[in-house]
């Protein structure tokens, strides 16, 4: 359940509840108001008929007859008060009233049998409730029932909104997951199938994503294939070249040995590079190497470090090794050796003069071991740290020219470690320098 899901869900739900509530409220008020209007209408007609009755009584029977009518209990009503005023604007029953009420003159004066004129009127119904009270009336009438209905409505709208939010956010979540996988290097990630049979913008987005992934995959594969092909093609001329150098050396004797040595050295270097590229290509292509060597990791590190020691001391650098406990794991000895050697040599190359590279072997959780290799060099710019394990990556032109690195070592290390179901990661240390962390399973799964 991502953020988007909750946003859609809550906002739609809230909106739906508010709209439904407002509509229900307005409707109730409207209905009740129209009820009240009809009631008032009826009442006013009734009043008019009462006023008319009294007028008739006065017309035919005079003031006394009217008084009699008022005193008849059956005709008494608390609210429907009808007043009869004589010529001095006094009620014949002596009741007080508001003289300025316009209703006083609503009806024509009536002349009684006695020849006197009277005004008959009735005051309008008093307003029983104010607006707010009327608005709240539906809730006051039977709060329990209303609460139940309200609950059901909220629940139902909640379900609907949940569905809608799921419908909208699920494919986006899938897209996001796929994009993450793609960025982690799983170039055969596709989403169209997972998104399903939709016909909307999200489905289009999914298809575009797939096209992009396919294109990316073919580009990367082409690049890898190119590297592999070139390395394969370089092998034959290189083999001939090595022989030619060997022959030349024999024929020339010791005459130009410095130059020959140089050529031999460079040929070796070329040989090494071709070998590394081929190993990388094979690891990338998912080749399976035999994992039938039992390797003592502590001894392996020690052996690598003693091999590198000459190179390090020559440049006033040191390598320290701390082994908490050593383990023997089943692995491909050559690959593992190459991986760790590449990392350690890399650290020696970049650590500052008069500093040391620290290699630590410790246990990590219960079933893994951890090797950390930390140098005291300039570290790596944060934005380049993830591309550190890509082949032929150039972090900065100057850095690589100085060191003469060709940028395959760490790429091979990463693939070799991953081939052993391990993980490798790089980070900059707080006090400067690069830290490479290798985690390997203790028992091969």
């Amino acid at each position, binding site marked *: 359940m991502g953020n988007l899901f909750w946003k859609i869900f809550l906002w739609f739900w809230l909106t739906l509840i508010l709209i439904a509530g407002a509509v229900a409220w307005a409707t109730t008020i409207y209905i009740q108001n129209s009820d009240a209007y009809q009631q008032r209408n009826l009442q006013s007609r009734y009043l008019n008929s009462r006023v008319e009755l009294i007028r008739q009584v006065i017309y035919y029977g005079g003031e006394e007859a009217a008084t009699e009518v008022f005193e008849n209990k059956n005709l008494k009503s608390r609210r429907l008060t009808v007043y009869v005023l004589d010529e001095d604007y006094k009620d014949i029953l002596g009741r007080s009233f508001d003289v300025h009420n316009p209703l006083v003159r609503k009806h024509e004066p009536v002349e009684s049998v006695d020849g006197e004129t009277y005004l008959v009127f009735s005051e309008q119904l008093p307003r029983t409730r104010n607006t707010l009270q009327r608005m709240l009336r539906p809730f006051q009438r039977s709060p329990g029932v209303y609460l139940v209905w309200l609950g059901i409505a909220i629940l139902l709208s909640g379900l609907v909104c949940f569905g809608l939010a799921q419908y909208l956010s699920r494919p986006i979540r899938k897209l996001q997951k796929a994009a993450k996988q793609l960025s982690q290097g799983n170039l055969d990630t596709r989403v169209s199938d997972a998104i399903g049979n939709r016909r909307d913008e999200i489905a289009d987005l999914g298809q575009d994503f797939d096209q992009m992934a396919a294109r990316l995959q073919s580009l990367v594969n082409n690049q890898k294939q190119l590297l592999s092909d070139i*390395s394969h093609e370089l*092998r*034959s001329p*290189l*083999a*001939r*070249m*090595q*022989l*030619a150098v*060997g*022959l030349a050396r*024999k024929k020339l004797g010791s005459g130009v040995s410095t130059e020959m040595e140089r050529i031999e050295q460079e040929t*070796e270097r070329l*040989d090494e590079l*071709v*070998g*590394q*590229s*081929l*190993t990388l*290509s*094979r690891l990338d292509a998912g*080749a*399976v*190497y*035999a994992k*039938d*060597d*039992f*390797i*003592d*990791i*502590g*001894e*392996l590190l*020690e*052996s690598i470090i003693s091999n590198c020691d000459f190179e390090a001391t020559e440049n006033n650098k040191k390598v320290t090794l701390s082994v908490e406990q050593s383990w*023997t794991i089943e692995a*491909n*000895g050559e690959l593992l*050796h190459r991986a760790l050697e590449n990392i350690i040599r890399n650290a020696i190359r970049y650590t500052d003069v008069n500093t040391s590279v620290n290699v630590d072997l410790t246990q990590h959780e219960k079933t893994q071991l951890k090797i950390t290799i930390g140098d005291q060099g300039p570290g790596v710019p944060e934005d380049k740290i993830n591309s550190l394990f890509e082949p032929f990556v150039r972090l900065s032109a100057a850095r690589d020219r100085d060191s003469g690195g060709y940028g395959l070592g760490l790429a091979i290390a990463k693939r070799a470690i991953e081939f052993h179901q391990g993980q490798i990661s790089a980070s900059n240390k707080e006090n400067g320098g690069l830290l490479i962390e290798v985690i390997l399973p203790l028992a091969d799964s």
Partner: protein
Amino acid sequence: MSENNTSDNKSNILIIDDDFELCEMLAEYLESENFIVDKVHDGVAGVSQANAKSYDAIVLDVMMPKMDGFSVLRELRPTNATPVIMLTAKGEDIDRIVGLEMGADDYLPKPCNPRELVARIKAVLRRTQLAPAIQDEIKTGDLVIMPKSRKAFNAGTELPLTSSEYNLLEVLARQVGQVVDKETLSEQALGKKLTAYDRSIDMHMSKLRQKLGDDDQQLIQTVRGMGYQLTSQ
């Protein structure tokens, strides 16, 4: 191992490789190192040439069109015991144990330094000249080892050994009563150079002992700092 077709002490080498120019230069190089060299350029010709003449060693390229090096070796081996050095493709992982079973004597990734190749050829020649010819059966105490079928029996029952374990046992049995150092065991039984951090021999040895019922390490003894020894009971 006979040297009857050479008047002096020169060894005969057969190169089987499909790269013409490389063969020319390799031949020249090896000749300058006092070898007598023949060269053929495909697997089929390689097999017939190897069987036509007695060679001291064969340098065999694995990557060849039509018939690759392993097929050549398979054709050759039942009848021909000439030591073979395989040139494998650099960067590729070859199954050394399978190669050993098939009878390859050494591996060298190609491209390689010619000096390295010469050193390997000389090492193989030294080894094969020293080693006794393959026996049909090695018997010591209750143990019977049959190299042709790669089977081992203990008191009449066949031992369920892996290839590595069998190889170790065979190497030890050939020199029964002598200490065999780890370097030799690693190279001859596991097909790789011994490294300080490789515990494979110890691991395979402990499993081999279990299968032999040799828990008290009487049959196969560890000679500290030197190697292992199969005792002649």
